[in-house]
């Protein structure tokens, strides 16, 4: 079920009312969350519910066994990781592996045409698998007390707002919330509604409109499209992926608030970062902290000398690229980001503070603004690699940008793109960036609870709804579902 679907519009109020009506005992409440989550997921394809149940059962059992057989904890945890990664690898990487095997064998004159597989990728498998893995690793490390409540645990794995596209929650943060009674908090629920509205704005107005434009440009990047249009195409994709994914996260976090559950912040104004390392601390935070905690630090982190630190960074980013998809473009994208961070480290560039630029002022310093622009351009280059179907296409696209026509007027007419489509999209990108910059000290762009006048607040909501209904694009699917 998609957040931006008619079904969800019906589903959410029903689950919300039932949830608070049946909030006692805790078991009933958790059971309702679980059933609702399975309906939410099964709406897409009920056959893959078995996979979630299997992952849930494996991780739950491993937690119990690790607790009971401490001496074999490493073995049990390792087995659980191997099986879960095995399932993920089969569904996500089997096609990729077979295709590459075929190419390699064909280089030596062997045709493997008989060897074909066509595995359907279950939605959100990377997200819930990583969440389940974090639990058993945390239990093994003694960070989390293993739960004996299978319903609460299953609800933790399958909690529908974040099931298919994150944030990837930790057992230390989310699981305890399912183990204690929740109480309704009016302020938090209203806050959740605001965040949902803001998420929909990002998705429907920014991402969906950018998607139409970016798809058009990327599809025709070779025949007679001038460089300035290619650059705009890259810009549109840059905001498509941000609007899409951060919009989803906002809707997820907002929806969870309605149920009295706190989810972690997944995006923190990444396009205002001053260097690439800062960008990765602000983009898809839940995945990057996951890799930091469960891959980077166990590899030694930055404790084993400079050389090893840089190798560890590269390993993490290559894995992060592979996590996004089974294609060489993702691997190279990960490599590219890893290299940028390594270069930053070598050059001694480090904006390690969590705070954004210009605290207490409206405008950033010239240096910070320059760094933001440079980082944004580097990120955009990365997104071109990410978006392209093959490395050759990515190379062609990037080369296509670097021609004298970069300074010409973008030729939208060549792709039959009417002014109606691109002009408002650019305008709303500017609005989004301005609002987010102005609200940078708050949790999200529409966090306007501080405005005393209800009429003004409601007026702002209505304007936003009007904008959404007038300018909503037509692409429905969220990009990150495929990961």
């Amino acid at each position, binding site marked *: 079920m998609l957040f931006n679907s008619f079904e969800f519009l019906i589903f959410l109020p029903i689950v919300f009312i039932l949830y608070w009506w049946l909030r006692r005992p805790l078991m009933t409440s958790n059971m309702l969350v679980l059933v609702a989550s399975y309906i939410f997921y099964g709406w897409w394809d009920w056959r893959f519910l078995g996979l979630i149940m299997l992952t849930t059962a494996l991780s739950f059992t491993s937690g119990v066994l690790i607790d009971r057989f401490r001496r074999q904890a490493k073995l049990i945890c390792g087995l659980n990781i191997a099986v879960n990664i095995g399932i993920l690898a089969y569904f996500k990487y089997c096609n990729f592996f077979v295709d590459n095997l075929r190419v390699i064998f064909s280089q030596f004159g062997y045709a493997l045409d008989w060897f074909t597989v066509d595995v359907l990728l279950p939605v959100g498998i990377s997200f819930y698998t990583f969440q389940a893995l974090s639990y058993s690793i945390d239990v093994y490390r003694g960070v989390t007390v293993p739960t004996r409540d299978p319903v609460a645990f299953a609800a933790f794995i399958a909690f529908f707002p974040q099931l298919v596209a994150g944030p990837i929650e930790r057992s230390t943060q989310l699981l305890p919330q399912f183990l204690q009674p929740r109480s*309704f908090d*009016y302020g938090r629920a209203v806050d959740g509604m605001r965040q949902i509205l803001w998420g929909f704005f990002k998705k*429907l107005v920014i991402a969906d409109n950018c998607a139409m434009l970016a798809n058009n440009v990327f599809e*025709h990047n070779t025949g007679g499209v001038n460089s300035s249009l290619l650059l705009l195409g890259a810009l549109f994709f840059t905001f498509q992926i941000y609007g899409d994914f951060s919009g989803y996260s906002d809707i997820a976090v907002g929806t969870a608030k309605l149920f009295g559950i706190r989810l972690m912040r997944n995006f923190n104004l990444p396009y205002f970062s001053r260097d690439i390392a800062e960008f990765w601390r602000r983009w898809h935070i839940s995945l990057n902290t996951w890799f930091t905690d469960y891959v980077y630090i166990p590899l030694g982190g930055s404790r084993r000398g400079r050389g090893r630190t840089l190798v560890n960074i590269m390993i993490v980013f290559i894995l992060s690229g592979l996590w996004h998809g089974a294609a060489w473009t993702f691997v190279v994208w990960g490599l590219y980001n890893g290299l940028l961070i390594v270069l930053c480290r070598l050059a001694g560039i480090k904006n390690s503070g969590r705070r954004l630029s210009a605290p207490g002022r409206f405008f950033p310093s010239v240096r910070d603004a320059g760094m933001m622009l440079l980082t944004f351009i580097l990120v955009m280059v990365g997104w071109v690699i990410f978006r392209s179907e093959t490395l050759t296409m990515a190379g062609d696209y990037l080369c296509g940008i670097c021609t004298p026509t970069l300074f010409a007027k973008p030729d939208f007419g060549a*792709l*039959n793109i009417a002014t109606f489509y691109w002009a408002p999209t650019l305008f709303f990108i500017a609005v989004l960036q301005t609002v987010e910059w102005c609200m940078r000290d708050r949790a999200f762009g529409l966090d306007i609870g501080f405005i005393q006048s209800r009429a003004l607040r409601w007026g702002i909501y*209505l304007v936003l*709804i009007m904008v959404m*209904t007038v*300018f909503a694009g037509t692409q429905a699917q969220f990009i990150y579902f495929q990961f």
Partner: protein
Amino acid sequence: MIRRFIVRSLIFTILAIAVVAGVAAALSMANASIYDMRGAHILFLGNSHIETAVNPDSLGSEVRNFARSAEVAEYAYAKLRLAHRYNPALDTVYFGLDNQMIYHDGAEFIQFHPSFYSALTLQDYAAVARYGDFGCVTHHLSHPFDIGKSFEYIMLGMSPDWDMRDSRSVGGYLEIRRYNLHKAMAQREKDAALAPGAGDESRIALYFIDRMYEYCTDNDIALIFLVTPQHRLTPYDKENYRHVMSSRYPDVPAIDLMDAAMRDSCYSDLHHLNVRGAAAFSRFLRDSVMHRPLEKGIKVYIDSII
């Protein structure tokens, strides 16, 4: 607390619906003439094949092209009725009946203008229910009240030159300048082993084509099927729609140019003519087709234009 939250949410929802629907109604209804049918009595309907091939500007002021990409028969039927309502002088309809049209029974990404509802009769709604294609009717509800085009009405008010083609959800001539034929041909060569797309005709598509036929018959409107030139590599199985044309609509004249392959430079891809092809094809329509009345039931298969 929760009761207060639900009550306030409901109040806000009602208020939002009222405001949005009110603005939508005001904007949509203010522009009642979404069909500029003044002085027109010849109408082209169909999918993108017609949309990109027929340039009404070169056919005279009495001609309109309201074909639209991925058009389905129910929309074409609704447009016919509305166009006739706006201009009872309408006397000829060229309708693009090809495989795409008779198999295509879902309007998954088409904006359905609210005024189209008024064009369907109860009998049509019953058919929609019977054939299970409510998606085409409810589709636009995914974006509440389908006022997604209202912006264009505002822009039109500010600038008469604003392109209203999409805002009306009725389509119109689409000029294609891009040239992707070589890419499409390469893809086609790659897919050559695949069987051409044949299957069962869509029941709802046939129902609404029947309804167009009935409507035209009842209102003395000449209905003519028109199939635009397709590239020689087009993978269509021609027998399907030709069988439908001759067996189901024996009385309806047809001009079938599927085999009239034009030069490669006239195509945007395998299925669509580009601006050059459209100019040549429109000229051909004007000079060789439209000026002479077609006899009832005659099927003309043309295999060469230029």
